[in-house]
């Protein structure tokens, strides 16, 4: 059900050109977990330390030193609300990187990104948070987290999963029974930011043989599009 969103990000493939004075550096390995084309070019021996240029859809998106790139690539990424100290350019590059598809992320990294979205909803305290658990029985282990979220905020919380368990009533929380399992293959969360669309965010991932493939984004339009799809599940 959410595959078209993953495919759309997959189609906007980014190109990274890594420039270093020596052999191909380790960073190309960490980029290999993302859906990006990586090229390596040699720099003169007395030249600068390594850097990378990033090209999105054929146009130059930015250039950063390799040290900075490592920080930029670590999920979860810097929250938009905490980007005030960054230059416009840096922020634009983060936007590009966030909508980069990743592959072979493990559960720990997905969990960290999920926590990041739940945290933001908690801090904002308003708006709609939707989250999918494959099967509702999986939600049982997260019940304490969501009870806390519901108690501390005015969030409208929607939990999706196959109906293999009857969760207890939690205030402001609606359960959606994904009877035909169309959402079951995905690990996903959306938060609409309440009345501040700049706080909206979405994570969509699907498990494949070698780990999860998916993306996260802070684009409010994309969040809205995914939410529209989700509304089809009662």
């Amino acid at each position, binding site marked *: 059900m959410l595959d078209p969103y993953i495919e759309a990000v997959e189609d906007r493939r980014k190109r990274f050109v890594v420039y270093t004075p020596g052999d191909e550096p380790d960073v190309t390995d960490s980029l290999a977990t993302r859906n990006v084309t990586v090229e390596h070019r*040699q720099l003169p021996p007395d030249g600068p330390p390594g850097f990378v240029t990033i090209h999105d859809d054929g146009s130059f998106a*930015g250039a950063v*030193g390799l040290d*900075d790139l490592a920080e930029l690539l670590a999920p979860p990424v810097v929250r938009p609300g905490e980007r005030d100290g960054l230059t416009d350019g840096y922020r634009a590059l983060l936007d590009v990187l966030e909508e980069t598809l990743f592959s072979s992320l493990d559960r720990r990294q997905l969990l960290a990104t999920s926590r990041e979205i739940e945290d933001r909803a908690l801090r904002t305290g308003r708006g709609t948070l939707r989250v999918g658990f494959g099967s509702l029985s999986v939600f049982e282990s997260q019940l304490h987290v969501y009870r806390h979220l519901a108690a501390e905020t005015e969030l409208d919380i929607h939990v999706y999963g196959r109906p293999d368990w009857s969760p207890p009533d939690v205030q402001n929380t609606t359960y959606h029974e994904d009877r035909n399992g169309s959402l079951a293959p995905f690990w996903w969360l959306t938060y609409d930011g309440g009345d501040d669309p700049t706080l909206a965010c979405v994570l969509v991932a699907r498990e494949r043989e070698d780990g999860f493939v998916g993306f996260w984004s802070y684009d409010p339009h994309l969040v809205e599009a995914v939410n529209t799809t989700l509304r089809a599940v009662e």
Partner: protein
Amino acid sequence: MNKKEGDPPQQKTERDRGVDELAGPFTTREFYRALAERPRRRVMAYLLEHQETTRAELADVLSGWEATEDEGTMTTPERREEITVRLHHVHLPKLADAGLITYDQADGRVCMSELSEPVRQHLLRELAEV
């Protein structure tokens, strides 16, 4: 330190002798003028490694090189556009005038000229600081 443009050495020194001995289009004045600005030295340093490239790739390289000079900064698309314009109108024509490169303004291709060994040695010395 960035050298000032149009400020070739007043006094001939030991290191100039090789340049004066050059045949062909090279003169001391043009040679040093061509290498007076940092972006042009960087272009030559990159060409020594690759011999042939494009204006677009040189703009990428100069952009990335700048980004390494301050931690936590990036070079924006706007800045790269400025770099491209300067390359096209100033730096590449100057290097071409000095006979160090050929620059095809239409397709953006940049090739390093065949350099005699003395010129190459001079170039390497000038590029010690890029």
